[in-house]
């Protein structure tokens, strides 16, 4: 296919982007009608995990540090929702902000000591958090139900207007899917917009040129802790969404392995762009659901009762392979692939020429040179991930 050049900000490019977005949304909305009933919950979980990985992208993509403890924040979110619904009679969706705030606070408590010092301390502290979380749940047994787990008496109710058709739209599961999809889209949109505000710009500046950012008065520690807390809060929302899909939780559900699989999703999806969370979640579900089920149902390792464990080896190999071959993850691969077909030409900001003429009155004979420089400034850059 011939490479096409699109100009940044042109109507054509906007239409292409909007079109791609519309196609993606249409697929997501139609999915519960296409797939079998039992798979709808898996899709809902995939979207919830996409939100959890989005939290990790926020942290790793913008501070360069990694958390091996996000399972704990997902767990705190899930427990917050179930405790509020089961014991205090809250409505399901109202618990989402509560989960967010609780995890935000937990994130500050964990992040402040670790993020003041750089290096691997955040990874260490979060790993300790992930290992500790199941026993913390048992310790707070009166609140969390301990090893017995916590159950909501009924799942999130389906309103009467929602079509209840067991063959195509599997009532409850499909409704939950749409609710989770809606929340996920809102969270993605909010995070995308946040990255274009003062806070987001400060984080990007800190990531790209820490010295210059500090010299401009950006407080490193404050913003790193803010990014970590925010990332924990987003993971908490993901936990609440998981509780909506399956309204029961137990202590070992949110263990170190979950954290590591979230990191695998992060690495496989790509940390440079918040949309990396989407391929990341697909990889996550493939490793945790599709491949183990396939190995067991096809009886590939005949006779070995632990055949599902082979996924662990695949996952480890995948993580190492991505670290070696495609550190930017799937989203970087897709961007490169897209770069073969589309070239996006950056244009200078509006009013730039007038501004230049105004501030730098040039001598005769230099105008040719300047226009050459101007052309060179228009070199195609790869489409930015976000």
């Amino acid at each position, binding site marked *: 296919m011939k490479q096409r050049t699109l100009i940044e900000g042109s109507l054509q490019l906007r239409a292409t982007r909007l079109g791609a977005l519309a196609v993606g949304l249409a697929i997501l909305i139609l999915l519960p009608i296409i797939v079998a009933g039992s798979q709808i919950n898996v899709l809902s979980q995939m979207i919830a995990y996409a939100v959890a990985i989005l939290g990790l992208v926020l942290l790793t993509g913008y501070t360069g540090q990694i958390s091996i403890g996000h399972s704990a924040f997902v767990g705190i979110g899930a427990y917050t929702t179930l405790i509020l619904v089961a014991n205090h009679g809250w409505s399901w969706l109202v618990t989402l902000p509560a989960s967010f705030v609780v995890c935000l606070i937990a994130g500050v408590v964990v992040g402040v000591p670790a993020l003041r010092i750089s290096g691997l301390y955040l990874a260490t502290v979060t790993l300790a958090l992930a290992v500790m979380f199941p026993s913390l749940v048992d310790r707070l047994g009166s609140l969390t139900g301990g090893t017995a787990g916590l159950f909501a008496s009924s799942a999130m109710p389906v309103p009467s207007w929602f079509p209840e058709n067991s063959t195509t739209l599997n009532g409850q599961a499909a409704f939950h899917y749409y609710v989770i999809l809606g929340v996920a889209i809102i969270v993605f949109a909010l995070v995308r917009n946040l990255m274009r505000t003062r806070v987001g710009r400060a984080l990007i500046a800190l990531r790209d040129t820490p010295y210059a950012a500090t010299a401009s008065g950006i407080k490193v520690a404050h913003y790193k802790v803010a990014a970590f807390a925010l990332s924990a809060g987003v993971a908490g929302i993901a936990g609440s969404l998981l509780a909506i899909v399956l309204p029961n939780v137990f202590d070992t559900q949110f263990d170190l392995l979950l954290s590591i699989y979230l990191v695998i999703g992060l690495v496989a999806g790509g940390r440079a762009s918040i949309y990396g969370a989407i391929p990341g979640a697909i990889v996550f579900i493939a490793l945790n659901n599709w491949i183990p089920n396939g190995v067991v149902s096809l009886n590939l390792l005949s006779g070995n009762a632990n055949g599902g464990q082979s996924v*662990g080896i695949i996952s480890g190999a995948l993580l190492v392979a991505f670290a070696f071959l495609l550190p930017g993850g799937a989203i970087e691969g897709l961007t490169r692939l897209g770069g073969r077909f589309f070239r996006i030409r950056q244009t200078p900001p509006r009013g730039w020429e007038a501004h230049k003429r105004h501030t730098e009155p040039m001598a005769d004979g230099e105008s040719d040179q300047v226009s050459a420089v101007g052309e060179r400034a228009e070199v195609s850059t790869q489409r930015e991930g976000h």
Partner: protein
Amino acid sequence: MASIATPPQDPTGPMAEAWWREHSLATNLGVIGALLGALSIYAITDGGFGLYLQRVFDGFSSGVLYGATALALVLVFKATKVINFGQGAMATFGAYLAYTCVNNLGFPIVPAILVAMVASAVMAGGIERALVRPFDPNNHLAILLVTLGVYIALSALTILIWGSNPHGFPNLISDGSTSYIGIAGARLYYEDILEAVVVAVFVLAIVLLLSRTRLGLAMRCVASSVESARLLGINVGRSVQVSWALAAAAGTLAACLSAPSTFIQPGFMDNVLLYAFAAATLGGLDSIVGSVFAGVLVGIATSLLTAYVPAFGAEFGSGVAFLLIVIVLQIKPAGLFGRHVMERV
């Protein structure tokens, strides 16, 4: 060091640095000693001396193993500035190798542990060569991801080969669970004393290796600056590889010594690793003797706190370890024995 009682005149010289380090260490140990002492007085009045002493012995014997595992973390950290998150899985795998030697090949326990230590050292050397060395040493994130990959793959491999049921593991002394010295009603097992001696000998061997041999000199040089080491013609990759191998041997040793009391099962080192993290953080991530000493401190503190502080309770030792990590990082990020590194930006 009693010889320097007052701060030296020159505030920047090497003497001054030594003075400040000695004195801040003395202050810290004093504070920790005072805290432990206060807790001990409360514990003795609360439950009697015999019970207290028993808890200290228990804490000491597990603390030695935390220290040995922390030693493994510190060896790798000194060489590469990366924490090997796969250490727990590697140690578990090594312990299973020893288990196979004992159970299927009929080895006595001591040769079995030695064979497992050598095998895991070779394996770690291979992992370092194949998966870690190709990366830029400053690319910490990539190396961290590789160690996570090693963790998850080795854990799964362990379950695939040996199943997920717990197994018994022989003691070093054949009647180790019954022979003990009784002191004021508390039992100090010979097994625990022997474990402490074994770990002490291993640590001594590593300290001697680092301070007395050419290889150790090269390793210390790499730890202090990779660039300078390279300029001096030191084979950086080789000495990092030796660090990984030694660390794996230390981890396997700790796992084999822990296994008799906890049973050997997949992931049984994950919990020990948590305490080892606490110990390594408390000792300062780059101090070998400090990590072992801090391991013993963590063991005793965990044993006493879970026994006498109702907020933790008997099952919540991991909470103590976690709190310890958070508090140390908040108050004294360099740990008790670590070098303080100035953080720019």
